[in-house]
Every structure is written in C-alpha cells, then in structure tokens.
C-alpha cells in the first residue's frame, strides 16, 4: 500500500469524499519531488554548512549544545511551517485561480471535511519537510530526541496551525503576489526573529521582551525542547502546547466558517 492509497486501516472509517480530497492533495505534492522536497533539501544543506559548520565552530556552544545542534530545531520549524502554509495557500489559491476548486466545492463533501482535508494534507507536508530537515541535520551532527512525544505534539500542532493560516491566505489572495507577500514579509521575519538562529538570552532585555510577543518563539522553543530537552524560554512545554493547540483549533474553525460563507469561493 502506498503512502496515499488508504491512510491505514483506520481510514476506512473516514468518509470517502474526505479521503479522496486528502489523497488528491497529498498526491499533488508527493508526485512533484523536485518542487516539494528538493528546495528545502538544498536550502538546509546550505544552512547547516554555512551557519552550522563554518560559523558554528566560531560561535561555540549555546545552552550547553553545539551551535549546529541548537540551530536544528529552529530550521525544522522554519521548514515545516513554511511548507504547511505554502501548501495550503497555494493549493487553494491555484484551484481558485484556475477554477478547478469548483469540482470540490460543488461536491457533497461537507465544509468541515473540505477544510480538514486541506489542513491535514498541508500539515503532513510540513511534518515530512521537518523530518527531511532533521535527516539533513543528522548528516552534519548527531541528532538526539529527548522528548519524542512533545516533539511529535509540537510538530503536529504548529503545522496544523500554519496550514490553517494557509487556508485563510489561499482564500484571501487575489493574485500570486499575495502569497509571496504573506510568506516573505510576514512569515519569514517572524520565524527569523523567533530564536531560530540565536538564543534570546543574548539579546538586550528590551528586545527579549519584544521577542516574547512573537508566537514563533514558543513554537521554536517547544520543538527545541522535544529535540534537546532544554528550553530557551522558560514557559514550560505544556502551557505552550495548550496555547498553540487552542490557536490551531480557532484558526481551523475560522477556515470552516469562511468555507461555509463561501469567502473567496463564491461569486
């Protein structure tokens, strides 16, 4: 059985319409590895080489681990959420642009199932890219996973959250520039200032407080906790997980409401 054929035995209990849409969404990116997997692979090889190996040796240790190992969870988050967001926003916007999304929106699949199919398939892409980046990192340094359940939970929640944002972006976009703007001018700066490349401890107190307003800090922090067992920000993984889970649920509910209203899909 292939990755996308049946989703395991439990999938039999899922409605066929939902499963079909999800399969379609997954096949769309799995069948295009040059678009899906190659870019993050190359980008992260460069990140690990330049920041991890070349610069990392001069930086030394941060929070008791080598810089390259400190860097890895942040890069995993960066890749995972970018891909979750891009996949959902592109898939929906491209479908709207070429109007083939109408084959889905005129079908009897419920709005909730439509949204979940887009969100879950996009979140899965984010997780796959996250795993790929971790594997690339493992080539450069031994990777440990101190809290696997937390790592899985954080990865699931943050990719779902950003896939949910991607759905909103895909419905809101009026042309392809909107997608670029959202990714390059909103998402990436937040991630880069979210403690991917540095520890908040090295910042002046004012900027540390400002950084704590950035939700990415808690996502990077949670994934770092899963990998390294240490937090950069002392918030506790459970509280961060609860807040992020609530945020993900709220965003998915907004997605469903937008589909129900036909926002960006009708007229």
């Amino acid at each position, binding site marked *: 059985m292939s990755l996308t054929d049946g989703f395991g035995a439990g999938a039999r209990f899922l*409605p*066929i*319409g939902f*499963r*079909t*849409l999800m*399969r*379609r969404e997954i*096949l*769309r990116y799995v069948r295009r590895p040059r678009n899906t997997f190659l870019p993050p692979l190359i980008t992260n090889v460069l990140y690990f080489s330049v920041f991890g190996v070349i610069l990392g040796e001069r930086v030394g240790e941060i929070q008791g681990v080598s810089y390259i190992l400190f860097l890895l969870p942040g890069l995993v988050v960066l890749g995972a959420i970018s891909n979750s967001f891009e996949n959902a926003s592109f898939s929906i916007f491209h*479908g709207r642009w*070429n*109007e*083939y999304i*109408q*084959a*889905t*929106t*005129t*079908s*009897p*699949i*419920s709005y909730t199932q439509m949204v979940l199919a887009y969100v879950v398939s996009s979140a899965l892409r984010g997780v796959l890219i996250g795993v790929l980046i971790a594997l690339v990192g493992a080539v450069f340094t031994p990777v440990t996973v101190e809290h696997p359940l937390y790592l899985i939970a954080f990865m699931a929640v943050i990719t779902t959250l950003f896939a949910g944002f991607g759905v909103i972006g895909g419905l809101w976009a009026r042309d392809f520039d909107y997608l670029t703007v959202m990714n390059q001018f909103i998402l990436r700066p937040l991630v880069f200032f979210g403690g991917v490349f540095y520890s908040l401890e090295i910042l002046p107190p004012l900027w540390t407080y400002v950084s704590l307003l950035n939700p990415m800090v808690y996502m990077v922090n949670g994934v770092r906790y899963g990998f390294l067992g240490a937090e950069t920000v002392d918030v506790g993984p459970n509280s961060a997980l609860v807040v992020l889970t609530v945020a993900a649920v709220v965003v998915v509910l907004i997605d469903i409401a937008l589909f129900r209203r*036909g926002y960006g*899909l*009708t*007229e």
Partner: protein
Amino acid sequence: MAAIETDDLRKRYGDLRALKGVSLEVDEGEFFGLLGPNGAGKTTFINILVGLVRKSGGEARVFGYDVEDDYEEARDAIGLAPQEFNVDRFFPIEEVLVHKAGYHGVPKDVAKERAEEALRTVGIYDKRDTRFHWLSGGMKRRFMLARAMVTEPDLLILDEPTAGVDVQLRHDLWDIIKRMNEEGTTVLLTTHYIEEAERLCDRVAILDEGEVVEVSTPDELMGRGKDTVRVKLSKDIEEPPATLDGDYETRVEDGELVVETRNAGGTLAEVLRELDRAGHEVVDIEMSRTSLEEIFVDMTRSHEDVTRTQTTGDGQGDGA
C-alpha cells in the same frame, strides 16, 4: 417530486439584479431548457443550484433539498458541466474523474470503473493518461460531459455544453445526453442554440434580464410563430387583392404577394382559390415557418421593450 424548484429566487451583484425573482419547477426525468441572451441570468441560476453563488433571496431546492441548508444532499444529486473549462491540471483526465467520483462518495475501485466507462462513452478513452491541458477543444468538451456523468447524477446540469463545437460532435453529445435522459436522468440545459432546445427539450424557459419570460414546450412556442407564404404571380401586383380578407395578413413585397398566417395549410388553399377567382396566375409558391429562434428573439425583444417602458414610466413617476 420536482427535480428543481425555485421560488422567487433573487440574486444581486451590487446594483445589478441578476435574478429578479425566478420561480421555476423542473419535473423529475424532464429535459428542461433554459434559453436567454447573454446576461439573462442563466449561469447565475445554475450556480446557485450547485453552490457557486449564494442567493440574495428566495428559495431553491433540488429534489426537495434546500441548496444551502441541505447542500450535501442537493449537491450529491447534481452533475455539472459548466461553460468554462475548470479542470484540475495536475492530474491525467482519468484520475480527475476518479477524484470527482470519490468526492461524491464513490469507492476508489468503483470510481475507476466509472471513469473508464465515462471516457469510453464520450469517446476519449485513449486519452485517459493525458492531462486536460493537452486535449483538443472538442475533446475538452467531451471531457466536461464525462466529468458530469461520472457521479451518475440524478440531475445533469449542462451550461452551454456544445458551445464552439463542430456539428458532428454536437450531434454526438446530443445523443449521449438524450440517452441519459431516457434512462431517467433529469437534464437542465442552457444553450444559445435554439435548434438544440428544439430537438432535445421537453420544456423550455426563456429567461431575460433575470426574469422568466415564458415557460412552455418547444411546440407550443412554435405555435406562436407565423407561417409566411410568398406567392409569385405571372404579373407583379402593387396591392393585395381585395378579396383576400380571411384570418391572415397580406402585403406586397417586390411585386409578390406575402401572406402571414398561423396555419399555412388551411390558408393556402383559400388564398389560391381567391387569386384564381380574381384572374391571377400563380407561378411559384414559397412557404416558411417562423423558427424558434425568431420567436425567442421576438419574445426577449418585446420583454426588453416592456421593461424599458416600465423603467421610463417609473422614472417619470419618480420625477413627478
């Protein structure tokens, strides 16, 4: 049960009233045509049924299911072939059909069988591994019909299904659609080709400027037209003979007698008799029947005139 039932269905786009209270009923198993000029509201009407447009007011039901409240049931009954080519370009056409059937709850193995069957029916099975983008124009039209069929819908909605296709393909598509209707599928067809409506439809509704102008059978509509008989006499005449005073209209064009009547068969004998009595020698007779197209143009034009008069009248009233 009615396959489609709309009551005072309205749609506004800002200031534009695309539908101004359309009430229609299409019976189960019927072949129903929706005729109207561009901008009449035909596509808006269809799009409300399938959920691509939200109505501004009124009611719309498909097999008793409200198109908004019970959208899952309503949409499950519908197969749509829209006017525009809106096909998933990431996948070969057979897979697109498998997905479409899957969205309607058809298991994957059955969906594949249905997809193959649909492609065979429309004659493009050999192209099953091709993406839509690479099909010819005619094949694209065939595919649109295959996609509408693959879910085995109870209601097939075809929005200009034969627009821009050659005569042979048009006839092929007509045969397929007609066969589906004979097997029990209700068909709602919008078309610009009056001949299409005349040949296929049990009933037609004429929609103009968002309003239903007429609902009738093609035959009834044809009955409203007039037959024209042109009679060439051995000598040109300047006026119709005075003895021609039956239930028909006469005039002279280019020296020939022109008679307009609702029943050419009955009138012709009387006219020939009167002409013979008046000493005219008939050289040639040419009969023509008003086409449905002419009736359609005439009806939409008169409706336009009425609407314009009402609007002008309203405007004057407001001014006073």
